[in-house]
C-alpha cells in the first residue's frame, strides 16, 4: 500500500508498503528500516525544537525533530524493530540561497538530528541533505530501498 506522509507527520509501514513524502524543502525526511522484521517508518519534520510551540508538540510531535525522531524509533520498536539492526537515512534540510542565518531552518533541523543520533549511538547509513532543491522520497519497506527524486532526476539513496 502507498502511504503518504504529509508535512509534520510520521507514518510506519510493514512489508509491502511504500512510504512516500513530497516537497522536502528545509524539512527533515528521516527513513528508518529494520531488515529482519521488515518494518520501516518515515518522518517529515518541519522544525528543529518543540520548545517553539509546546502546545503544538503535544498534539503533533512529528512536526519537530526533537520530538518526532524519538516518536519514530519508539513506534518501530513497538512493531518489533531492534535498535542494533536499524538502517537510518536522512534527506532534506535544504536552505535558501545566501548567507542569511535566520532562514537556515534546514541546517538547524540537521544539527538537532545529528545530536539526537549521536547521543543514542546511531549512525546515518546515507544522507542527501542541504542545497536548495525540493526532494521527494519513496521508501519501499520490503527492501528498505529509498528512492530520491529531485528536479526530475531519480536515484537510490
Amino acid at each position, binding site marked *: 500500500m502507498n502511504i503518504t506522509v504529509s508535512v509534520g507527520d510520521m507514518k510506519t509501514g510493514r512489508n509491502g508498503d511504500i512510504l512516500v513524502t513530497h*516537497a*522536502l524543502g528545509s524539512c527533515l525526511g528521516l527513513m528508518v528500516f529494520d531488515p529482519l522484521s521488515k518494518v520501516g517508518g518515515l518522518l517529515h519534520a518541519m522544525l528543529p525544537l518543540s520548545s517553539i510551540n509546546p502546545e503544538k508538540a503535544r498534539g503533533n510531535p512529528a512536526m519537530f525533530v526533537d520530538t518526532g525522531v524519538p516518536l519514530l524509533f519508539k513506534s518501530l520498536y513497538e512493531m518489533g524493530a531492534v535498535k542494533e539492526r536499524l538502517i537510518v537515512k536522512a534527506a532534506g534540510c535544504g536552505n*535558501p540561497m545566501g548567507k542569511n542565518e535566520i*532562514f537556515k531552518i*534546514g541546517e538547524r533541523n540537521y544539527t538537532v538530528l545529528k545530536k539526537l543520533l549521536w547521543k543514542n549511538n546511531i549512525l546515518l547509513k546515507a544522507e542527501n541533505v542541504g542545497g*536548495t532543491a525540493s526532494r521527494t522520497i519513496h521508501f519501499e519497506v520490503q527492501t528498505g530501498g529509498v528512492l530520491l527524486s529531485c528536479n526530475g532526476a531519480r536515484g537510490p539513496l
Partner: protein
Amino acid sequence: MRIEQISRMIKAFPAMPGAALQLLTLANAPGTTVQQIEAVLRQEPGLTANLLKLANSAYFGIPSQVGSVRQAVLLLGLKRMVQMVVAACASAIMDRGVPGYDLPAGELWRHSLAVSVAARGLAGELKIQAADEIFTAGLLHDVGKLVLGQFVQEDHAQIDSALAQGMSFEAAEAAVLGIDHAAIGAQVLAQWSLPEKIVHAVRWHHAPESYSRIDTLLDVVHVANMLCLMIGIGVGREGLLHEPSPLVTRRLGLKPAHLEKVASQTLQWVSDLSQALTVA
C-alpha cells in the same frame, strides 16, 4: 519574440470579477454603508453565502454564528471582509496546476493561502502594524506564474543552465524570458485596478531592496513567501532558489523564533481557511 507573446497573454488574462473590484473600491472609500456592500454582493450568485461561510471559518475563530453581511462587517471589519471576498473570487483562477514550476492542481492556491496567513501571522508575531491589504498581497503574489509557467516549461533547458550559473529562479526567468513572474503579476493586478500597495508588494516580493520605498507589507510578504517554500507548501521546480534579503531581516527585527513560531501554525491556519474557501 517571447516577451511579445508574454505581453499578449497578460492582456488576455481573466478579469477580476466585478463584485470583488467594486468592493475593493468601496472598502477604500470613506462613508461606505453596509447597504452598499450588500447590493454589490447580491450581483454575484453565491457570493453572500461564500462570505458568511468564510466569516464562520475556524481561521477567524469568531465564537458566535455570523448570519448576515452586517454582522460580518461588524465582526471582521469592512477591509478584512472585502479581502475575504477577493480570496473567494481568486480561488477560481488560482486553483489550477502550473506547468514549468511543477505545481500540481491546487498547489499554487495552497501556497497563496499559506503566504497570506503566514504574512498575517508574522505581522502579529513581530508586533508590527501591517496594512490590511497584506492578506490580498500574499494571496496574489504569484499570480504571474499562471502566465509564465508555460514559457518556463518550453525554455526549461535554458533556465536550467542559467540556474547552474548560480542565479536565483526569478533571475533565471528574467535572463531567459525577458521578464520574471513578479513583474508579470504586478501587470495583471494593475490591469485589475487593485490598490497600488498590493501591486508594488507583488512586483517586488523577490527583490524588496530594489523597491524605491520601504513598505512593511512588502517586507512581510517577502519573508512569508520564503518561509512557505521552505516548509514545502507550493515548492516545485524553483526549490529554495531565492535569497531572503538581509536588509529586510534587519528592518523587521526578524529572529529565528519568529519564523519558526509562525511555521508551526501555518498548516493549521491554511487548513482552517481552505475548508471555507473550497470552490463551490
